[in-house]
């Protein structure tokens, strides 16, 4: 029972990350019709947003390190710590939550710039061209990050209060031994909130209504005198924000490195396809579904029956679902079929 509960939690957690990335991806696809291979890079940029804020907060004074006598070595003491002592240390400790405040406007800007500067020139081109140019952009972004931050992962810890693990076992009355990292629980909660916010935004605001109408029939909405394009640009920015925040929150789970976006990209495309191209609900449902399946496939009991199943389960499920439902779980007719 313990094992199953922890795998469900872990699956939900993974699923949360998959769903967030897939959500942004399918948002861009559903509105702009763009297959955005740079979406993983946006996730990575968000994570490095957290890294940057951490580095900004820890800008340090170089003090000669007296403990090293062979050569001149220097210790770095953050200015915040020098100026404000414990308060400064606490601000540094909360670097990741603080970074969210900066990542949101930053990613919105990046998203809008990306759409206006590059992607808008590719609306009329084939999907193959779009894939090539966005993939190229992803590589450029990666290399820029690598040139500045280096190739090794950079530890970006969560605040000390939530760096340990939560006694979920005791909470569910299942024994003291069962624990789960606090930050992963927070991630799960945050991904739920973000997904809810995106849906609420699209469902309950006029802006969202126009966007949904535009997704369904762009021409008619345009004929009504509404500038659909501008709204779609903003939606693209929103997709970038979702990816960026997902990345920034992910930084304490996995120390960010320049390649982290690519690792997620392929998976999130599978999620989008399984969910149904252009379907937001599908992307979220498929994200959680595949996360949980992957998590269960990793259990030793399962692996002893089918070795290596954890590596292929997602793709296996994708094949089966596409055979039975060629448009994916919640795919609409007519999307990407012309």
């Amino acid at each position, binding site marked *: 029972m313990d094992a199953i509960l*922890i*795998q469900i939690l872990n699956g939900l957690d993974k699923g949360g990350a998959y769903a967030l990335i897939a959500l942004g991806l399918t948002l861009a696809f559903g509105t702009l019709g763009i297959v955005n291979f740079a979406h993983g890079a946006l996730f990575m940029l968000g994570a490095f947003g957290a890294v940057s804020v951490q580095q900004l907060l820890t800008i340090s004074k170089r003090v000669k390190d007296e403990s090293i006598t062979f050569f001149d070595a220097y*210790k770095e003491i953050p200015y915040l710590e020098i100026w404000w002592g414990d308060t400064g240390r606490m601000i540094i400790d909360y670097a990741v939550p603080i970074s969210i405040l900066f990542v949101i406007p930053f990613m919105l800007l990046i998203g809008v710039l990306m759409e206006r500067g590059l992607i808008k020139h590719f609306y009329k081109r084939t999907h193959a061209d779009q894939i090539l140019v966005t993939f190229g952009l992803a590589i450029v972004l990666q290399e820029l990050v690598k040139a500045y931050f280096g190739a*090794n992962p950079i*530890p970006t*810890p969560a605040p000390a209060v939530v760096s340990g693990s939560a006694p979920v076992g005791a909470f569910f009355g299942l024994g003291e031994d069962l*624990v789960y*990292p606090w930050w992963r629980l927070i991630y799960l909660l945050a991904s739920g909130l973000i997904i809810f916010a995106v849906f609420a935004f699209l469902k309950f605001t006029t802006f969202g209504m126009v966007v949904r109408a535009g997704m369904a029939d762009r021409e008619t909405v345009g004929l009504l005198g509404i500038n659909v394009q501008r709204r779609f640009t903003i939606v693209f920015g929103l997709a970038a924000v979702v990816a960026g925040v997902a990345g920034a929150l992910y930084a304490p*789970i996995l*120390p960010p490195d320049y390649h982290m976006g690519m690792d997620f990209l392929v998976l999130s495309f599978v999620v989008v396809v399984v969910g149904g191209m252009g379907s937001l609900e599908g992307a979220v449902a498929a994200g959680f579904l595949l996360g949980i399946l992957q998590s269960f496939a990793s259990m030793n009991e399962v692996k002893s029956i089918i070795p290596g199943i954890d590596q292929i389960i997602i793709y296996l499920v994708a094949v089966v679902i596409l055979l039975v439902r060629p448009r994916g779980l919640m795919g609409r007719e007519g999307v990407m079929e012309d």
Partner: protein
Amino acid sequence: MTKKDTTNSGRRGFLKATAATGVAASAPMFFIKDGHAAAHGGMNFRNNPGKAKSIKLGFNVPQTGAYADEGADELRAFKLAVKHLNGEGDGGMLNTMKPLALKGNGVLGKKVEYVTGDTQTKSDAARASAKRMIEKDGVLMISGGSSSGVAIAVQGLCQEMGVIFMAGLTHSNDTTGKDCRRYGFRHFFNAYMSGRALGPVLKKEYGTDRKAYHLTADYTWGWTQEESIKQTTEELGWKTVKTVRTPVGAGDFSQYITPVLNSGADVLILNHYGKDMINSLTQAVQFGLKDKMVNGKQFEIIVPLFSRLMAQGAGDAIKGILGTTNWNWQLKDAGSQAFVKSFGAEYGFPPSQAAHTCYVQTLLYADACQRAGTFYPPEVIKALEGFNFDGMGNGPTEYRAEDHQCFKDVLVVRGNPNPTSQFDLLQVEQIVPRKQVEYPPTQFGCKLGPYKV
């Protein structure tokens, strides 16, 4: 009209001149090459420098990919070694190495130059870049690298091409075991030695009644390390609950760590390196494994192969964790201090174990050429085989003739719980003497192959 003619004849003249220069430039090369062969007693070999005033070495390190930071540190060490060989700087370990044939005026009177390549931590890319350096740049020796997969691939190529390979950081038993080559040499220690060195310390710290769970990087190094550590711990009386292979670069290890939680194991052994080690260790700590009590005992994590660069990446997670390392900058012997001083003065921070092994390898190769009195590989190989030396940071060391593995003391280290500086991340727990980590040369199936290729 006249003008046009002039232009035409000018162009023809240029073409003729170019052709003539081309012939002139290529023809003498043949004579020179034969001349060299005669000078070396009729021996001819690939990239023979002959009467040239300089020789070229090829440093093949990961400049991109997951080990790029290690590669960068290796490159720093190589540059420093070349400087010292050419008599520039403070000489570093040339002041402490014993015996020493080098004179600080290059090698056999020739200035040392170098070219670099990018292995990308991929076997095929590493081979391609080594091949380019051998064929295009004419290097006499290849060194560097930060992965056993790469080392074994490049070593095989070097044997085929008759160029000596001085391996960088590679820890798989196979590098000087079943995949050993006559032209390949390894100064770094291996997984078997890590196991032997760790054994007694594990027994003292964690007792003889333990249940171990392995997570293992799924390639040659991971496999051999898992095997060696398993062998050691089972000899202590530990049980192995489960060994799980993880793909290199898995990123999120939570799906591999959650099954550990209720497997009944009370020790987690991470046969991971680089990025994988940083991620798996950080996440294992996040899942509360460090504070867990299982079977009435404190749960323990072991990282058999440690590196300071990685300790930096893992932050606080590393504190208190046991492992082994080939070398640490805080060693107090004269050789280590000379190297750290020289490296620190040049770059402002201490060298990593990867940098150390690459620096030492370059000096060892150069010294062997000097002693052999030639760059002819079979002679240089004979000069390295069975060579005993000291003053290079690991105490008395021997390049074993039978498998080209260096035998020396091994360091058991612990993630420092109270670091006094940003570099003070590993504390040396014990220096395990060479005889405790020794094994017969046939143990891992090494057959070196021919001297002449």
